[in-house]
């Protein structure tokens, strides 16, 4: 069964990639096996060591989704402060955009005909 995909410009063969991935996984597994052999589950070793402090609540250490990419959105504040308010949720605005695009596309088609 042929698996090579010719994209007109390059070649892409997923089977080779899969084999490579399998090899890498095998290597990772081997490294993992050769770890510390005295580690045991369910013993004292499992508890995190936080400079001798008590472990905090589970909820406290969980990072919520809203906190991710805070820096990204903060960095692109100028862009987002323009883009987000456009999504007003107002049905009239939706229709306005539709008719705007309608007229714009018509103008483009007529001009570049």
């Amino acid at each position, binding site marked *: *069964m*042929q*698996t*090579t*995909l*010719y*994209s*007109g*410009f*390059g070649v*892409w063969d*997923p*089977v080779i*990639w*899969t084999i490579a*991935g399998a090899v890498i996984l095998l290597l990772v597994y081997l490294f993992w096996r050769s770890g510390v052999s005295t580690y045991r589950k369910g013993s004292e070793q499992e508890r995190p060591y936080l400079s001798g402090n008590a472990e905090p609540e*589970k*909820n406290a*250490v*969980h*990072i*919520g*989704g*809203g*906190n*991710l*990419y805070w820096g*990204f*959105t903060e960095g*692109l504040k100028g*862009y*987002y402060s323009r*883009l*987000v308010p456009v*999504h007003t*949720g107002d*049905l009239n*605005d*939706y*229709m306005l*955009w*539709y008719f*705007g*695009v*309608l007229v714009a*596309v*018509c103008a*483009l*088609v*007529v001009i*570049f*005909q």
Partner: protein
Amino acid sequence: MSQYVPLLVALPLIAAFAMPLVGMLGKTIRNSLAIIAMAGTVTAALLLVYEVLVNGTIIYAFGAFDPSLAIPFDSGGVPIRILFVIDAMSAFMVLTAAIMMFAVVLYSLSSESEQTGQDGYYALLFLMMVGIFGMVTTGDLFNFFVFLEINSLAGAALAAYRINKGLSVEGGLKYAFISTIAGLFFLFAIGMLYGQYNSLNIAYIASVIDLTGLSLVALVLMITSLAMKAGSVPMHFWTPDTYSSAPSSITAILIVSSMASLYAIFRVAFSLYGVTMNVVTIGWIIIILGILSMFIGVSMALPQKDVKRLMAYHSVSQIGYMLVGLGVGVAVLGDTQMMNEFGLVAMEGGIFHIINYALYKGLLFLIAGAVIYRCGTRNLNELGGLGHSMKWTMGFFIIAALAIAGIPPFNGFASKILIYESVFIFNPYISVIAMVVSIMTLASFVKVFHSMFMGPKLPQYAEVKEVPLPMLIGMGLLAALIILFGLFPDLVVNLLIEPAALAFIDQSGYISSVMGGI
């Protein structure tokens, strides 16, 4: 000539019509009817696809004594009946829709089992499928409009299926309103074409069309309203509203119906107008819409907190890929050399992306539905630690997320690489933008993965179990197909995609299949 063609529409319609009556008999009988009808429809669809791939384009005339006779002898070479014209592209869309329907019906058996009014739910589900099948197979403009309306109304009613403190109703209302407007302007366009050529058949109109001002305005109206139905920027505003408030299984079908609208854009562009219109202008308009969709969609998705809303913005972004891929095909339609060089590959990428997108985006929405089904919330700030209890769901999520981000060896990569490399020849900047968007997609799904499945097991979700088996089967089917398509992309491209792309380009073939070689 095939007897399966009307069954594609008739079987789900009869199932939908019988559903309220059967619903009075009991839950088990109703569910079995749903499964039987779905299996029958999918079987008919698969047989049809097989026949199209083997024998070429199928013509079916409704109401004629001999359905394969498209044009009566005494009509002077004009098709007078409603024709279903199923070429390779239509067959491809039928296949996509059938797969999604199979998965969604299985999934719904469990996910909606707590709700009342399920007979209506299944009836509307089948009606939506009728709409999609009709839209992708019909060769008649007004018939397309009717199926569009069926699909829109059923979709809107289903989007409001769970009231959800009014949020779902709001989403359904926006969808219904916008679909109606799009349908009305499509009807205006149909009227303009009818007034000039006195026909509703796409192939016949394509054989006689010339570019008057009326045809031009009709083209603009059709493309714009269908682009709004497909949810491209800057008419995408309804997409996150409706997708996020609809039940997850319905969102998976809404995606397929937006795909059907996308198909219709290119059916209009390639088969109805073809080189009659100014292909470069139209192509660039579609490409610009695609670029805007890609970029704005993904950048709106990044800061979202609602998991379904985030995925909805991603679907806007993914639609951009298809618009770009197929739009490049439109833009180079008149130039045979450029078409052979890269246009065909770009179109193949765009078409391949349709089925890939439907698969992984459907799977993602089904997963989101599974999480909401168990946890009752969709806020990413509140979710977390589900990887401990929902292992299968997490596995499926990893597959789907990697596929949507275009990570090898999943199917998203296969279609995206086709788009990148061919579009790079057309215009390098577009390709670069597409890659950047792909990276941002990955970033945003890392966020989703982290906040849903990673982290310590939270106390409020201690009771959460794995979802029931039918839901898992539905999701697993899609995941298996994603891996299959990712591992053997060339098989799919050769078998399905390339005939579809060629069918789009070959306008004269489309016309002659109906008009009998005129």
